[in-house]
């Protein structure tokens, strides 16, 4: 029997549409429900007060601050190392089996479950280096977790700078480093920033890596040094959702809302940077 191409096409479209809806609908539902149930909890007190009455009242200020500290610490650690590694891999390393394995390994590291990073951080930073459960340990663990993201996106950004720019620069007598410094890096910065911010978003939202390395169950004051424990939004959410009975739904969804807003905000910044870059892209 001859197939009717028109009908085959309609069937294909139908399945593609279903696949798309399967993704879009749950995501929209999550966002809508969290906004609906969480938004009423948001007020100045919720954002600026410490948790009270065994976390059943008060605010989530220490958790917000803790998350910001952790994310900042992770980026201070991961951005320089990640960027330098990306420059090495894209500009200096030769194309040989060893370097191909290294590149593949880095891409795969991005897929390692985050709880594995948590255990690694526990063993290395908390126990071996004796940093204890502290902001330092947590930041380093998160930093290691987002390194593969930063390296991979930075490398892609560097490699997307046209080869001809490097050739001209070298042909004008610039050294390799001058070429990277003056020509390659400036043209790759938007891509590097995008990757960094995506990494930040990931670091802000993860629970497992901070579980054993920094997160405090209940600590109604702000950390004073990087060797202190701290509360963090994702762990706080986990605690008030599963470990503490009778927490008002409003507070739980409010916390989720703040976390979601923080991550979405970071992703939004990344999208804006990328959009501006595309519009300005000149080659």
């Amino acid at each position: 029997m001859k197939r009717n191409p028109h009908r085959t096409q309609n069937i294909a479209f139908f399945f593609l549409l279903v696949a798309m809806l399967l993704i879009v609908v749950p995501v929209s539902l999550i966002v809508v429900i969290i906004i609906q149930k969480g938004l009423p909890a948001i007020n100045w007190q919720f954002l600026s007060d410490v948790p009270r009455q065994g976390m059943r009242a008060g605010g989530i200020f220490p958790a917000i601050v803790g998350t910001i500290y952790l994310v900042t610490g992770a980026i201070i650690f991961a951005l320089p190392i990640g960027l330098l590694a990306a420059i090495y891999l894209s500009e200096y390393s030769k194309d040989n089996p060893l370097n191909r394995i290294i590149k593949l390994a880095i891409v795969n590291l991005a897929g390692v479950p985050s709880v594995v990073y948590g255990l690694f951080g526990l063993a290395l930073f908390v126990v071996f280096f004796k940093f204890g459960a502290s902001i330092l340990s947590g930041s380093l663990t998160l930093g290691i977790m987002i390194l593969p993201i930063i390296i991979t996106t930075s490398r892609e950004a560097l490699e997307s700078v046209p080869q001809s720019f490097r050739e001209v620069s070298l042909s004008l007598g610039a050294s390799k480093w001058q070429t990277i410094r003056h020509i390659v890096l400036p043209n790759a910065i938007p891509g590097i920033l995008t990757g960094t911010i995506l990494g930040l978003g990931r670091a802000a939202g993860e629970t497992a890596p901070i579980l054993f390395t920094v997160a405090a169950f209940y600590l109604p004051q702000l950390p004073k040094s990087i060797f202190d424990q701290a509360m963090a939004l994702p762990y706080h959410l986990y605690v008030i959702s599963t470990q503490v009975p009778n927490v008002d739904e409003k507070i739980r969804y409010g916390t989720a809302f703040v976390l979601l807003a923080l991550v979405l905000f970071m992703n939004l910044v990344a999208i804006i940077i990328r959009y501006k870059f595309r519009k300005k892209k000149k080659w």
Partner: protein
Amino acid sequence: MEKIITKNLNLWYGDFQALKNVNSGFKANKITAIIGPSGCGKSTLLRVFNRMNDLIEGVKMNGEILVEGENILNPDIDLVNLRKKVGMVFQRPNPFPLSIYENIVFGEKIHGDNIKKDKLYDIVEESLKSVLLWDELKDRLNKSAMKLSLEQKQRLCIARLIAVKSDILLMDEPCSALDPQSTARIEELMRELKNNYTIIIVTHNMQQAARVSDNTGFMLFGELVEFRDTHEIFTAPSDKRTEDYITGRYG
């Protein structure tokens, strides 16, 4: 006087020999064209003069290349100085995505010892004047170079070399992205520039070689088959292969 001399120059990309025993001499203040079919090694030959082939992995060379009497295959050669002296114009006009001004001062910024602003401005003016762009562009030096026409971009790329005070200009099919009028004007510029520069141009356009060059080399399968006065090579080629090529029997 010869600016560049090659003696028994051989070059391999891995196992493939791209240049075979090339002996040549490029005269100062002349335009020398290198012609030949695709893959004959003419771009490879051009790119040994500023050692741009070094960027390709697996390149091996032997023989001698004397640039102003100095063997540039010597491992101790200062590549920065060599590339300042021997500038290259590429097939596709490739200004940096910076302003016109910054494109021209790029070389000075790289090599520079804190040159004063007005000195830099003088360099920009002088370089743009020598490629006949100054009147067109003097009011928009801070505009992006990416907005220029292809011809203007190619002139800007030449000006960028003039700014680093190159002596020798290597041109790798500099007009192949341009329309015929722009090509004619770039050729006119080349004739102007040869008073102060030594120019070597690679082209697969025989008419262009005949129009613009003083000497012409014909290459085939990595060999420099014939290397003579342009008029002679086009009217009375001494090698059968040259004759076949310029009469259009292949290529």
